[in-house]
């Protein structure tokens, strides 16, 4: 199968959808003729022009509020926000308007809006360009929160985002944007709320690891090391944190008895806490050890490479966390 980068895979989905549906338009800073800071819209401006690829003022609250109004009246906006940190100015619009509109109108208004852009720690982006914050959105009723980890998933999940009528936070880890992987040319959609068992453990597998976004690759590296010692690990990528596919996680936990959640971002009140709580709630009798979390440090994100590396998990710390859990 041909290989595409993560960004190209998502762009393929966007381009195909725009060709079919004239109500889709993209807003963002530099997404017009420039083709997007991360090449998310490269080549599309020439095809569809400024009305559908709209460069905006630096007014995140403004253009997200505007897109809410557009989504309520028949258009299908895609907000290309570049860095998730930038749209924190729009939290009121997002939480009070975008997330609540369908409910408050008793389902008579739809809110088909895709908010896409980068998240994550890496590349010395420092603290105003490294936010993850997905747990915040997963906490709010009304959002779909998507965290693809592979080019294949990026295309399939973007297709689902563009076809639904719900607000979707489509969050692309910056360290994944240029990673390559097999992507089918046909049109396919991956439903939200369907985790992927990325690495299946053997019959003697005694630990399940849930890994999100960029943590998935690092977790798989750790598993390769552990395999040399004959340690089998089952690895699950939830792919969407809202909705969260707990059934797949619990199925694996039933098999293995131990659960570790590897999440780059902060632990308190995070998605790992939610997964752990549900595991204890729904599968206590499957647990052979406490549920463990491996998170990034609860700090803003520093700039200098050794400082930056110190606030996020890596393959070695993940490997150790798995060993520790197996010894519990």
């Amino acid at each position, binding site marked *: 199968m041909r290989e595409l980068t993560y960004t190209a895979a998502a762009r393929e989905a966007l381009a195909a959808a725009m060709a079919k549906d004239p109500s889709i338009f993209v807003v963002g800073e530099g997404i017009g003729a420039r083709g997007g800071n991360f090449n998310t819209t490269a080549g599309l401006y020439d095809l569809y022009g400024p009305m559908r690829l709209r460069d905006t003022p630096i007014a995140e609250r403004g253009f997200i509020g505007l897109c809410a109004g557009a989504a309520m009246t028949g258009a299908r906006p895609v907000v290309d926000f570049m860095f998730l940190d930038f749209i924190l100015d729009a939290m009121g619009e997002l939480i009070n308007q975008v997330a609540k509109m369908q409910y408050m109108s008793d389902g008579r208004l739809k809110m088909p809006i895709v908010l896409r852009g980068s998240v994550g720690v890496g590349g010395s982006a420092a603290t105003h360009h490294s936010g993850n914050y997905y747990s915040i959105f997963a906490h709010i009723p009304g959002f779909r929160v998507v965290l693809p980890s592979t080019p294949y998933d990026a295309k399939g999940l973007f297709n689902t985002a563009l076809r639904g009528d719900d607000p979707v936070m489509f969050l692309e880890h910056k360290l994944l944007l240029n990673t390559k992987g097999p992507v089918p040319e046909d049109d396919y959609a991956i439903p939200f709320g369907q985790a992927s068992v990325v690495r299946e453990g053997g019959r003697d597998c005694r630990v399940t690891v849930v890994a999100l976004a960029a943590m998935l690759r690092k977790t798989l590296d750790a598993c390769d090391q552990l395999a040399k010692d004959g340690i089998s690990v089952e690895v699950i990528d939830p792919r969407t944190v809202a909705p969260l596919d707990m059934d797949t996680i619990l199925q694996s936990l039933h098999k293995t008895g131990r659960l570790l959640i590897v999440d780059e971002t902060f632990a308190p009140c995070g998605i790992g806490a939610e997964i752990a709580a549900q595991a204890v709630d729904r599968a206590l*009798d499957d647990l052979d*050890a406490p549920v463990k979390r491996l998170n990034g440090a609860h700090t803003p994100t520093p700039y200098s490479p050794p400082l930056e590396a110190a606030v996020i998990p890596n393959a070695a710390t993940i490997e150790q966390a798995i060993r520790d859990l197996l010894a519990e």
Partner: protein
Amino acid sequence: MAIEILVPRLGWTMEEGVFVEWLKRDGETVRQGDLIFRLEGDKALTEVESMDDGILRIPPDAPQPGATVPVGALLGYLVAPGERAPFEPSLPVTPSPPLPTSSAPAAPTISPRALRVAKELGVDWAALRGSGRTGRIVEADVRKAAAQSTAQPPTARRVPVSPTRRVIAERMAAGLHVAAPVTLSSEVDATELVRLREQLKQDKKATVIPSYSDLLAKIAAHALLEHPALNARLEEDEIVTDSAVHMGIAVDTERGLLAPVVRDAQAKSLLQIAAETRALIERTRTGKATADELRGSTFTVSNLGMYEIDAFSPVINLPECAILGLGRIVAKQVVTLRPGSIDEIERVSVRRMMTLSLTFDHRLVDGAPAAAFLQRVKHLVEQPYLWLVT
């Protein structure tokens, strides 16, 4: 002067018990009448009350919860305020504050998953050593234990002997080896007894329907008044004969064979006995019976009729003198001969027959008085009005 707290004897035969837990903490003030610890002894769990006032002091080497302790063993002290406990150094020390939690050592912990697997595989995990970081028993420990036990012959499941089982074992062995047991059997015609019971079932005023055990308990109590030699026990060089009949009723429970006691059965009506045994049996089966309710019987009845047993040799519940076993009641053809004839049949009828088995201790009583007692019981079964009118 510190007052010693010792393991008490809870029953006539108790030699040792299991110290279960303190109900007061080290350093806590205790008043006379307060319950201070739990002891599993002679077939029951007892909460032991303090006979004195004082401050509870528990020596560091005192028996730990779960330990088997002989009667008379030292558990702790009651001291006066400011008084030093005997185990403390001679320098005055300030009394330690009450412990925030029970002084019980951590019981082995087990993961929820391991617990589930233990139940599935029938593994008794209490004795396992956990391999988890904190000593937690994990699934692998349980599976290993299960694999080892299945490697043994199928009958080899090992369960530690419980205090209750140990008491039963010792008593039963004593009943056979210390006593001189002899068993007499007699087939009796229970037709009238069955009829009586059917009539009681029809009686709207009857609050309980007596079981056959109740009926035989009543009949035996009545017969024992006429044959007190069977209502006796051996105490050192004396044979003690009780004027009251305290009737033990053997009951099968999860913990083993227990015999709750109906006191003064000779003075109680059939329905009183029935109501009391029903309540006692329920309390015994659910482990709520007190030690007092399980001891002090002078005679015991044991019924295996519900298991379709025809006859058996019951074992004497020492120090009693005798025990009466009840077999099942079955319909049989009975031949009645013409009066004066040797083999001429007057009629063949169907009767409800039952075998009674009396085991008695030949050390205390001889065969003839024992047989006379059993014969009296037989007559009372066959003609219930004989005792109903008394």
